[in-house]
């Protein structure tokens, strides 16, 4: 039996998105959160006396890793070194290998995989031999099928583990730049476990072979909701593996939708919001809440105005030394009872459909938005105009159209 921790997408020192005017103390806690999560993982590794730890890419948030991130990561790796726990690291698209001379060196227990597929072997405390194969990103995008370079399972060893920072083909084409692979390709290698990275949502890719995305270790925006952490993997020679998720993130993003369509007085809405938020007593984490308050379209103007004000929601912030529940995002949406189509659509259904399909195509969409996206250099740091993005924007536009009734 071998026991190891599989974590990925640490994004150390990564900033959180969509936050403004937070108390300084919370900002500090947020800045510490990725490190804290890592520290928790390292503590768990030492405490559970695991055989080794694997990090499947994106240790750092940026290619030019921040000094703080490097110093902290090194410190944690030294703790593992002291406990004689080996660490296997691959770098991902966010922290691809550059000039290593510019980076702090890591202690000897850490093996960083090269830009081409490598295989290392080790013998655990229990005497089992383990082979670990993997590669690090040498540049931001890896379009080659690196999966084909992975060797077949070694026959002379007890366990073979693959580290891969990449994306399963066919799910979403825009990830084709990130070391694409197929399930069949994984299967073909015959490994005992695939420690995947890149996707921030925790998921089991397959049972045969075992392949997991552990998700990132700390949610950093309102889309990365729920508990975040690492996987404790126990592989056994003659029994089924045990893979268990452990939460290590101290701050949890949560989307809370409050349906107040039927309510039309402020107290009731206030109370409903209070009830919908995580309770302070039972909360295990700090929470950053993305709150959507749904109200009726017929709601009184004055009430709508009041509940739309920031002050209305400020009362729901909870912040004490040991605990915070902060509403980072607040949106009031009026739910229209019937109108599903816009007038334009009713009047010119064919033309309307044609336009929509035109705009959802890359060409039409990009042409329309070229003014910004092709002229501002900052368009690079924004979301790509992917299918999802286009669809989302069109959805938004349609809702705008509907709302713009005179």
């Amino acid at each position, binding site marked *: 039996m071998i026991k190891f921790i599989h974590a990925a997408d640490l994004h150390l020192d990564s900033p959180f998105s969509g936050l403004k005017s937070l108390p300084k103390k919370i900002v500090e806690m947020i800045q510490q959160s990725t490190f804290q999560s890592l520290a928790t993982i390292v503590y768990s590794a030492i405490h559970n006396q695991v055989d080794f730890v694997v990090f499947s890419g994106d240790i750092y948030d940026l290619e030019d890793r921040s*000094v703080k991130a490097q110093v902290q990561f090194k410190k944690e790796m030294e703790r593992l070194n002291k406990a004689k726990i080996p660490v296997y690291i691959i770098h991902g698209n966010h922290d691809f290998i550059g000039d290593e001379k510019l980076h702090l060196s890591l202690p000897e227990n850490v093996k960083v995989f090269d830009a081409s597929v490598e295989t290392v072997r080790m013998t655990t405390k229990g005497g089992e031999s383990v082979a670990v194969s993997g590669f690090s990103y040498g540049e931001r995008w890896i379009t080659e099928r690196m999966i084909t370079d992975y060797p077949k399972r070694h026959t002379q060893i007890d366990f073979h583990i693959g580290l891969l920072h990449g994306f399963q083909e066919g799910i979403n084409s825009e990830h084709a730049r990130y070391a694409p692979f197929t399930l069949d390709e994984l299967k073909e290698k015959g490994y005992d476990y695939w420690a995947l990275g890149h996707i921030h949502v925790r998921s089991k890719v397959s049972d045969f072979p075992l392949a997991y995305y552990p998700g990132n270790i700390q949610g950093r925006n309102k889309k990365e909701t729920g508990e975040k952490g690492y996987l404790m993997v126990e592989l056994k020679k003659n029994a089924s593996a045990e893979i268990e998720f452990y939460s290590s993130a101290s701050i949890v993003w949560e989307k809370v939708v409050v349906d107040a369509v039927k309510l039309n007085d402020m107290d009731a809405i206030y109370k409903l919001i209070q009830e919908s938020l995580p309770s302070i007593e039972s909360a295990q984490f700090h929470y950053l809440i993305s709150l959507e308050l749904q109200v009726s379209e017929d709601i009184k103007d004055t009430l709508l105005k009041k509940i739309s004000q920031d002050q209305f929601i400020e009362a729901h912030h909870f912040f004490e030394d040991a605990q915070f529940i902060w509403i980072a995002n607040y949106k009031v949406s009026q739910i229209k009872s*019937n109108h599903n189509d816009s007038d334009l659509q009713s009047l010119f259904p064919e*033309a*309307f459909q044609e336009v929509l399909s035109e705009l959802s195509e890359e060409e039409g969409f990009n042409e329309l938005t070229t003014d910004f996206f092709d002229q501002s250099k900052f368009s690079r740091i924004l979301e790509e105009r992917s299918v999802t993005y286009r669809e989302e924007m069109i959805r938004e536009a349609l809702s705008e159209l509907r709302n713009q009734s005179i």
Partner: protein
Amino acid sequence: MKIKNLMIYGYGKWIDQTFDFSSDFHVVFGQNEAGKSTIMSFIHSILFGFPTRHSALLRYEPKDSSRYGGKIIIEDERFGIVSIERVQGKSTGDVTVLMEDGTTGSEALLHKILYGIDRTLYQSVFSFHLKGIERVEDMTKDQMNRYFLSAGALGTEQFLQKADQFKQKANGLYKPTGRVPKINQVLKGLEEKQAAMELAKSKNAEYLDLLQKVEGLNQEIEEQERTQKELNIRIQKLKQFEQNFEAVETIKQLEKEIEQLNTSKLNENSLYEMNTLNKQIEDIQKEIRTQQALLKGFEEEYEPTSQLILYQEHEQSIDALAVQIGSIDDLIREQQYVYKELEKAEQEITKKRIQLDLSSDEQVPTALTKAEKETLVEWQREMNHKESGINLLKEKLTTIGFKISSLEESIDQLEQNLWSNEQFRKEEDHFEAKPATRSQAIQLKKEMSIILVSIVLIISIFLLDLPFMLLWSLLAVSLIIGSIFSIWKKMHKKNQDSAQISYEDYIHQKEIRRQWRDYLFNSDKLESEKQSLHSEIAILETEIENIQSGWTKFKEDRLAGYHTVLSTVLQFEEVLSKLRASERERDKVRDYLEELKTALFLKTEQFDQVSELFFEEDTPTEKITKFKTFYQQVKEERNQLQQYMIESQEARRSLNRSIELEKTILRKKQQLLQEAGADSEEVFRHLYGILKQKNEKEERLKVLKEQLPENHSEIKADSIEDVRYQEKQLQQEVLNITTSIKSYTQEKIEIEVHIKRLEEGGEYTTLLQEFENEKSHLQELVNSWVTNKLASNIIEKTLKYARKDRFPQTIVDAENYFSYLTKGKYTKIVIDDETVFILDNEGHYFRADELSRGTAEPLYVALRLAFINNIKDTILMPLLVDDGFVNLDWTRRTRMYELLKEISQTTQIIYFSFDEQSLESLEDGQKTILTKV
């Protein structure tokens, strides 16, 4: 869809009012304030909802009635007759749709019935007035153009306005070259943030350099500190040198003085030796005094006793006596022992005499001779023999007596049964004599033998002293008794065997007779035996008497006065002989005791030489004891004396030794004095005083030298001024180094702070977070920009495509309508590059914006009606026209009504007017006349 009836429960001024609009073309006539607009609003409200509070529309909640709302009955190609009722409820009112088949529905169904269009669209397309035209003068050419264009192409300009709003919003967010729009501002901010971040990033790259720099600085500082330390040591040395400058001078002086003091002859140790010797001499003299005192003590202590003096006077003879003491002691012990023996013998004799009942002084008879003893034995034997013979005979006699009495008894019995002689004889004759039995005697013999055996047994038992004597004798006695009983029984039986007088009785009698005779015979025989036994006994008794008289005579001769009998006389004699032996023994012991006494007396006579020791009456034994005590004491005293002698000799010897030692030491002292060249101890001591002075000086010199720094010789300085100058120079150097260390340290600290900051990442992390915040802000804004762009684009493009599809036919219709309205003056409408031209029958083109109001209005209406006509396949709704044609001349107005009537064949038209002309040639069902209330 057509509106058939209105049933107003309460709406504005209308309470519980119904209207019938069943005809395709219906005019609602009324002056201002008659309620036309209220009816129009009622239709809008029932179909699309009551105006909400925040709507710009007028609200018509009845003032006098609590019931708000009403019902519209419509007829629809798709749904048939449908009743739409809306009453007060939620803000837009509660709708109930009742279908022909009785099913009901609400908003969703209504929405479907209304083709999914909303109030805005309906108002802008199907419910038109010409108020827009009123503003024609204010419009720009482009606006004007679009106004006409959209009327034909889109039915309304509303969409384009909407598109414009979105466009404006988008432009407000971003312009590629702008500065003011939000995104442009954010971009600028981001630019700055990025620059700051680039700076921070470059600092990140610096990090490793900084680490190295700090390392370098550390080394530099260390080096400097080392130099500084060395310099300080040198300064210290100089300072000490300066301080000790005086000492250096003193040292020189001392060295000179020491040289002058010549003490070469004097050995450093001699003084110590002298002192030691003096001490030794003192010790030894003390020792001698002690020893002498001890010796004197010994002499005083010793004085002999009177006993010793006596001893010393007769030493030889006393010693000779003492030699004999051992043998005398033996004699005394022997004497004591013998005396005890004698006492024991006396006691023995006394005991024996008491045993023999002899008094202590009674003479013991002489011993019996052998012949006498034999005679006595013979007598005893015969006596015993005869006495046992008598006993035997007496026993026989007793037996015979028994037999006789038994026989007599048997005879007596027989005689009872015995017939008289005559009778017998008679019977004898009668019966022949028969043989009689004889077995009896044999029988008895058996029993007798058993008795005999038993007797023998008893005797033998007593003689042989067998074990279980009692048991045996009991057995024998029981045998005897058993036999006797058996005999008796047989006898008895025999006696019973008679009494029958038959032949048998005769035989029996005969037998008895014969027996009787036998018994008688036996009885006689036994009597004679008895007589002979008696005589035998008498003989034996006579013989015993003879012996007895012999014995009596013997006793009187030999043992008169002693209590003894013949049978025990021998034993008595035995005891007597023992007594005689004891007395002989005692006599022997007594003699020996006397002998011993004499010997002892003789021996002790010698001791009278020391008669002082004894009293006159002392026994030899006492004398000896006293002498022994005396001798013992003397001996002890002598021993003691000897001990004293030894000890005093020892004391004298050690005294001599001490005196000897004293001499040796004094010699040594003399030698020391000679060595030092002194003739007396005083001189010697003086010399050593000088030496001490020198030593003190040397000591001081040493201390002074020690005070000086170890290697002060390194310092080359002629004067104290020179030293001070050197010191000053060095201190300057140190100062320089300190300054440089300070600046290095300062630099190092700064870099370290920098490193620390980088490691903590505060600044960079904050920047990252700020950048991220800006970024997400930008994302939001861009999303909003994209959304607005999309929205406006969707509208414009949809209209464009729609126009492409329907426009040609719409223009043809519009041309027809326009031509009709203008009585053929204008025949063609041309659209060119978004500009609307019209062609008159003379071949002149006019731009739409150049037209007079009287012409522009018909053009607009023509385009609008053409549009409505062309979308009727998609949406067919009643057209509400609000009295627009005031600017038309009579002719054109008449034609307009005609045109409307014509169009109403496909699209219901409800015309609201205060123009009476509009009522011309209408049937009753086609008009509703409102009068002011």
